[in-house]
């Protein structure tokens, strides 16, 4: 199915290994599934593949998390030393104008979804590192630095995962250290790749899992971690904003959390169904720091980490069919994030746990499909939570930010999520751009080098590792189509939405224009795979261990 960047890879001899369950992705969903499987049956052979060089290396999140799913998974998480150290102490939701800000009063009444009392500010990367250690204590085998590159399908049933080849050069030739990927056979495969997983995309199209669902919609989250002077640090302070600098058609906003040892997590989420091709999510993130409601928090501090990641925003209506012969979808690659709450960690953990229950039951039967997964989900709090939140996100696309906010208040307060209608997501994100000529240009301020920065100095703080001499993992299927559509109609939007500066519209000596792809800068956010107007760009996993190395605190 998925061709790895090196299409020749199907011709090599592959070693095989067999497990009961292979899990692709070591984020909250995958690790929760792994732990739960071994809790239920300590004899199961469970293997987790993670494309990052270590667990946590590719995790980008806020994150304010609800501890409830974690408590169900590991009730003694405190004693086990889970890195949930900063309880939320103070909370603000601001509507921004260019210079001013209006706090939303009585937040817990007006927007009960935003009430963060009892939640914790964490580094999700660190939480995953800790969950990985717990999983190993339960006997799970974790293999960081190995990608799930292809599904292994026999007789219409997914029977395992093929790991990526290592040691292939740019032109597809084998280098001296070439190591072919292996076939990891599994009786069930759990996909836990997070938003826009590459194998998940394959499985959804191969088994037509989206036939009765809305398209998935996404947001792009771009984040910085700052270290600030101790005297300015307010552990547990949580602030969200909407409004300025985005226009009324664009959903998104900033978050800022104080946590840990003098750290501030700041980020900006832009919904990828935005219309204006001139928009740059990176620069929206940068300029929001200059707003009086944000600026003081960075005073005297230094930026230490940078990263970006897409999140699934579609919610309930966009959930595909969740099982297929030989496996299941969990977490963000299925779309379990609760958008009004901007939280997907507790739902990822919970979906992983429920998947594990269904999978361990399926292993005892002859049915290749874990059929009880859907029913178990429907009987859980996860399902009602997503159902009640279902109309909020689409109302913003339908009526814009201001009316959407009004509708959301009514939906939450009066109907409490039980309104007798369901709003839909009519478009996929790649269908929403208007032509560059019709759209207003946006004048972004130049970076000042202390509070605001350019992409190059930002990506430097993602600790990228990417052997240049490997096949390009961002494939432009049809170069001419880029000239015709991306360049001519949309003025090369990828050069603005890519948070890592991978894409540059360039001119050859003979005057021809082309898309230059600096693949070694890619931070694996997946936005190009989502937003490219003709779906001409395809993200494939590069060699295992490539990509960002987000340190502790991310």
């Amino acid at each position: 199915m998925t061709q790895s960047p090196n299409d020749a890879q199907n011709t090599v001899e592959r070693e095989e290994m067999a497990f009961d369950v292979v899990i692709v992705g070591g984020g909250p969903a995958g690790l929760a599934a792994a732990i739960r499987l071994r809790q239920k049956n300590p004899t199961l052979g469970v293997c987790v593949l993670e494309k990052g060089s270590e667990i946590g290396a590719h995790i980008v999140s806020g994150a304010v998390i609800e501890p409830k799913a974690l408590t169900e998974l590991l009730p003694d998480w405190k004693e086990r030393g889970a890195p949930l150290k900063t309880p939320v102490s103070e909370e603000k939701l601001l509507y921004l104008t260019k210079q001013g800000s209006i706090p939303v009063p009585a937040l817990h009444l007006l927007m009960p979804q935003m009430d963060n009392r009892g939640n914790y500010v964490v580094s999700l990367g660190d939480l995953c590192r800790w969950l990985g250690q717990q999983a190993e204590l339960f006997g799970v085998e974790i293999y960081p630095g190995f990608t799930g590159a292809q599904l292994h399908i026999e007789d219409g049933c997914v029977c395992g995962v093929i790991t990526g080849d290592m040691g292939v050069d740019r032109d597809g030739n084998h280098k001296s250290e070439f190591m072919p990927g292996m076939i990891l056979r599994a009786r069930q495969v759990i996909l836990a790749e997070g938003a826009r997983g590459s194998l998940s995309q394959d499985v959804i199209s191969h088994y037509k899992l989206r036939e009765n669902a809305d398209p998935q919609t996404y947001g792009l989250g771009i984040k910085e971690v700052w270290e600030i002077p101790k005297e300015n640090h307010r552990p547990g302070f949580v602030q969200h904003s909407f409004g300025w600098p985005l226009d009324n058609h664009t959903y998104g906003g900033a978050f800022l959390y104080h946590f840990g040892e003098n750290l501030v997590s700041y980020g900006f989420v832009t919904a990828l169904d935005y219309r204006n091709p001139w928009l740059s999510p990176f620069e929206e993130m940068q300029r929001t720091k200059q707003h009086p409601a944000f600026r003081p928090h960075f005073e005297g501090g230094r930026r230490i980490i940078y990263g970006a990641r897409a999140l699934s925003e579609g919610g309930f209506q966009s959930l595909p069919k969740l099982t297929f012969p030989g496996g299941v979808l969990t977490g963000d690659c299925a779309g379990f994030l609760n958008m009004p709450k901007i939280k997907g960690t507790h739902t990822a953990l919970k979906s992983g746990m429920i998947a594990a229950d269904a999978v361990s039951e399926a292993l005892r039967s002859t049915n290749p499909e874990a059929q009880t997964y859907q029913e178990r989900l429907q009987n859980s709090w996860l399902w009602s939570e997503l159902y009640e939140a279902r109309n909020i996100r689409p109302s913003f696309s339908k009526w814009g930010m201001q009316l959407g906010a009004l509708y959301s208040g009514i939906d939450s307060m009066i109907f409490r999520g039980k309104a007798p209608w369901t709003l839909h997501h009519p478009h996929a994100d790649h269908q929403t751009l208007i032509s560059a000529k019709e759209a207003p240009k946006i004048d972004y301020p130049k970076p000042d080098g202390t509070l605001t920065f350019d992409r190059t100095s930002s990506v430097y703080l993602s600790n990228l590792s990417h052997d240049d001499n490997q096949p390009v993992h961002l494939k432009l299927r049809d170069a001419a189509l880029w000239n015709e559509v991306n360049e001519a109609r949309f003025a090369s939007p990828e050069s603005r939405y890519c948070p890592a500066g991978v894409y540059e519209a360039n001119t050859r000596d003979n005057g021809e224009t082309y898309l230059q792809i600096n693949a070694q800068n890619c931070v694996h956010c997946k936005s190009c795979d989502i937003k490219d107007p003709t779906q001409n760009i395809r993200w494939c996993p590069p060699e295992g261990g490539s990509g960002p190395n987000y340190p502790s605190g991310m």
Partner: protein
Amino acid sequence: MKVLVPVKRVVDYNIKPRVAADGSGVETQGVKMSMNPFDEIALEEALRLREKGHAQEVVAVSIGPQAAQDTLRTAMAMGADRAILIRTDAELEPLAVAKLLQAVVEREQPGLVSMGKQAIDDDMNATGQILAAKLGWPQGTFASEVIIDNGSAIVSREIDGGVEVVSLTLPAVITADLRLNEPRYASLPNIMKARKKPLETIEAGSLDVDIAPRLKVVSVSEPPAREAGVIVESVEELVNKLKTEAKVLP
């Protein structure tokens, strides 16, 4: 012949080191650690010597905290037969490391010590040389090629502007330079097998070696941020700036 490969656990080479807020050193808390890249090369060379039949056993040794076990598991996943951890939480200088390695050499009696030319954290480029001196063995440093022939090692050394070829009588110490080889990846089955290979732990304190530090770090600071460039309009302006601002012209 047995080959001993010292491997050091260092901050991963992809991580941009960050000086701790109090200027006492580089932040290592929660930072990804890996095997020193030159040690991977030294290990690869030892594995190739074994594959060519010159060596029968490859033993990896690391000196450091309990977590250095991970580095040794990686060494065994790449192909080392067994591993020894000399466990200590102390800050070590090359002299102390060399003394501890000397104790391991006396116990293990290898025919060759294959190690990195330098560790990328402290950049001392000293341990191999000190070890050779302490043992009274010949040394081939900055090796870019190693040929074992009849009880001696022919080592090509990368020196300024060329290559120097030396012949060493074994046992000897060789330190690996970048171009010696391309280290292999650890495959999944080998990572699994490495979990069952023997890893012995010896407390550094039990080796009767003085590892007290001799050096004091006065301060650690980040290099100054690069200043933004300017585009000059004319040659005159450039020359003028070189004289008055950069002060590189009289």
